[in-house]
């Protein structure tokens, strides 16, 4: 659907910018004139309904009649806010572009509320959210903020608890057919106090990506077995991943006249380098404790908690951030760049995302499924002529310290978040838009565009069954119990915005190679301790950090669970067929 098509709807109430000339008054006051007829309230026309339901949202788990009823509800509920312009912000992925380019228009046509849906980097978004809380200035009326921030949200007192809001102030503007239980990520956005603080808008996981077609080539399978003594297949552990990386980069080198690489990653000094590690890389190595979603009492950031209170990240305080497992994880991350294209070390998250599409990458241990939509584009060298992918996604291999019952990987759950310092009427209007973007009327279409599902009803729909062969395993992942074992950063992290910059600032030092990884991790762990201590002092409360006294490393390494003492980091490589590998998802 293009923006050029004219829409004969509610045009009498839209505050067109053409009529809004900015003026500085003599007093120096900046004001922008409002449309005089902005508060008119015409009936939602059948033409509008038809335009959107038949043109854009023709796939839905609702019947057309039910969709029309939802649109009518939005139209009615929005009446007090017609003519308003609201501001929301989200990160840069396909799903949010769809919302910004299409859903915001649909919402405006249906409700008369104009939405400026901004797209920015995830780190920008985190800084903006922190700024709104700290300055008290209402920058945005709603944020789509990752559920990684849940630990800060419930401790800060600055975020609206949605489970309270929909019963109280927001009751009149809460969609009767919202159906919270249909959201697969609701556990991620529910804090230890039992309240839901965020409404999931999109979800994507971090999985193993590989060239299914190459792994099934007889010549490559035979050659791999000759060299390594076991089958070329989906690696179960990091030893096998490393062997396969070496195999393609060092031994195969070229396929069909093109260079190939056995590994892909990104390492530019940039905030996204931090996510590469904080998005569960250390838990995949096995650094933390058993327990879903994040490990108890030591989580995937290496932070130990006592009840809900963080007590330290360094081994000397009972954490695991500078434990043998953490050091091993970062050593492998750094070392494996030798198997990646030379450019990889200078790429960011976004820049690296499209690399698998070039057809040069054999496997990637850490691949965000937010890029599935890009990797399924017709004409790419990784897509067959019939539209099926030449690749598959499978469970990521795990490191030498990983044990059954631990978190298996990362899942991002970008979720609608309302702040208490947003004026009540603007918050209500923004809440309407938030619900519109996840309503059953639009969510299946949004899922097909961005491939970041949030509703069980969408995942289990026949439409997704038909689409599954084109998506390389994404539907199978989301239909399985695995979606509960790939989890976001948890509630142990008391202030994500303040602590997360430590990751990229220290990991970049490890990548530069000027100092040994173990030293860098020791510094990172100490910095994390200091950060936790500062948060504890600035934001006192029953769940705020209070550091354990320092003990010897030996004391904690001998204690059960994480931090774990050094172990054999080179177990024999093990692989499975694709079919066997995805059985662990069930």
């Amino acid at each position, binding site marked *: 659907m293009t*923006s050029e098509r004219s829409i004969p709807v509610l045009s009498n109430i839209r505050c067109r*910018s*053409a009529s*809004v*000339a*900015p*003026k*500085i*008054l003599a*007093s*120096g*006051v*900046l*004001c*922008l004139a409002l449309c005089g007829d902005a508060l008119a309230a015409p009936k939602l026309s059948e033409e509008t309904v038809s335009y959107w339901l038949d043109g854009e949202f023709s796939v839905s788990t609702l019947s057309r009649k039910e969709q029309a009823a939802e649109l009518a509800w939005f139209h009615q509920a929005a009446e007090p806010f017609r003519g308003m*312009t609201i*501001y929301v*912000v989200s990160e840069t992925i396909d799903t949010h*572009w769809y919302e*910004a*380019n299409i859903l*915001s*228009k649909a919402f*405006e046509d249906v409700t008369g509320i104009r939405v*400026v*849906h*901004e*797209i*920015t*980097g*995830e*780190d*920008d978004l985190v*800084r*903006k959210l922190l*700024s709104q809380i*700290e*300055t*008290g*200035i*209402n*920058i*945005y009326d709603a944020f789509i903020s990752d559920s990684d921030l849940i630990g800060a949200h419930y401790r800060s007192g600055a975020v609206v608890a949605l489970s309270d809001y929909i019963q109280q102030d927001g009751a009149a503007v809460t969609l009767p057919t919202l159906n919270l239980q249909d959201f697969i990520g609701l556990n991620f956005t529910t804090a230890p106090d039992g309240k839901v603080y965020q409404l999931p808008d999109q979800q994507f996981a971090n999985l193993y990506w590989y060239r299914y077609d190459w792994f099934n080539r007889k010549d490559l399978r035979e050659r791999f077995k000759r060299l390594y003594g076991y089958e070329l297949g989906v690696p179960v552990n990091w030893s096998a991943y490393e062997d396969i990386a070496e195999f393609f980069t060092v031994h195969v080198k070229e396929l069909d006249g093109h260079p190939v690489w056995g590994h892909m990653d990104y390492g530019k*000094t*940039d*905030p*996204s380098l931090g996510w590469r590690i904080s998005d569960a890389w250390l838990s995949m190595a096995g650094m933390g404790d058993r327990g879903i979603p994040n490990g108890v009492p030591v989580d995937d950031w290496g932070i130990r908690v006592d009840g809900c209170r963080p007590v330290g990240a360094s081994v000397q305080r009972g954490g695991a951030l500078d434990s043998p497992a953490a050091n091993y994880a970062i050593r492998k991350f750094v070392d494996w760049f030798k198997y990646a294209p030379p450019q990889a070390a200078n790429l960011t998250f976004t820049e690296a995302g499209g690399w698998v599409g070039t057809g040069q990458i054999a496997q990637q241990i850490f691949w965000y499924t937010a890029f599935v939509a890009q990797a399924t584009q017709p004409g790419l060298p990784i897509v067959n002529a019939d539209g099926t992918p030449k690749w598959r996604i499978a469970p990521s291999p795990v490191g030498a310290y990983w044990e059954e019952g631990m978190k298996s990987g990362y899942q991002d759950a970008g979720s609608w978040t309302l702040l208490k310092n947003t004026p009540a009427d603007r918050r209500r209007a923004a809440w309407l838009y938030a619900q519109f973007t996840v309503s059953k009327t639009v969510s299946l279409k949004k899922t097909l565009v961005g491939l970041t599902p949030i509703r069980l009803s969408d995942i289990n729909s026949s439409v997704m069954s038909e689409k599954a062969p084109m998506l390389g395993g994404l539907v199978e992942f989301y239909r399985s119990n695995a979606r509960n074992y790939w989890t976001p950063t948890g509630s142990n992290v008391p202030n994500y915005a303040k602590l997360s910059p430590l990751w*990229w600032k220290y990991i*970049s030092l490890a990548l530069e190679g000027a100092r040994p990884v173990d030293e860098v991790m020791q510094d990172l762990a100490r910095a994390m301790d200091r950060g936790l201590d500062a948060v504890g002092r600035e934001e006192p409360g029953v769940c705020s950090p209070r550091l354990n006294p320092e003990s010897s490393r030996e004391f904690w390494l001998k204690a059960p669970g994480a931090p774990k003492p050094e172990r054999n980091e080179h177990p024999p490589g093990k692989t499975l067929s694709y079919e066997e590998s995805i059985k662990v998802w069930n």
Partner: protein
Amino acid sequence: MTRLLAACVTWVLLHSVPALAEGEKIQVLAYAQPPFMELRHDRPAGLAIDILNMLFQRAEVDYSILFLPPKRAYVTALSEPNNCVLAIERSQAREALFQWVSPILITRHGFYSNQTDNYNIRTLNDAKPLVIGSYLGSGVGEYLEKLGFNVDLTSSNDLNIRKLQLKRVNLWASDTVSAAVIINQSNLPIKLEHVFLTTLRAMGCNLSTSPTLVERLQNELKSMYQDQSIRQLYRNYLGQDADWLSN
């Protein structure tokens, strides 16, 4: 006016600011962008300058202000110790390049067109086929370029007005407050089409700057927001009831 202001003019503050604990002096590199930053009678003035003055005085940090063209201010702060650039857009792409004191300003950015144009821009994507004017060193210009927009860069923001009027660009991307000043000062037939981005405008300091000093400034800035000092400075420029973030 901006060309004149862009000439290197130094205005060193000689106020009674106590000596720095670190024994260092910060050179702040600003560029002309009324009403945030400009030289009035050879003296730095504007909302961002007022915030800066209050910040450094409250933090008891010695400083001077030098006006340069925006791109030169940016690259100088990147390379020269104890230099900071005011007030640039803080963004993920720039995050690792500076140490930040933010937000000095919070600004909305929009697309502007000639009154006679009728582009019907409702979303950022609607502007994709059009040529957009911005200026060298602009974080918003960088943002649009990264997204694949056709961006035409000038050496300063106000030069885009002429390009827009001559139809050498279809749209001018600017923050809404300084655009309003320029448009209204000369009663220009230019209109706001669509707001598409909000930025935190920050002071970006050279990476070698003392982290303790940066933290001190950041903490002081935070307290200026919390005790309403910043809000009062905004009111001085935008009026008692002005809400510059509502467009």
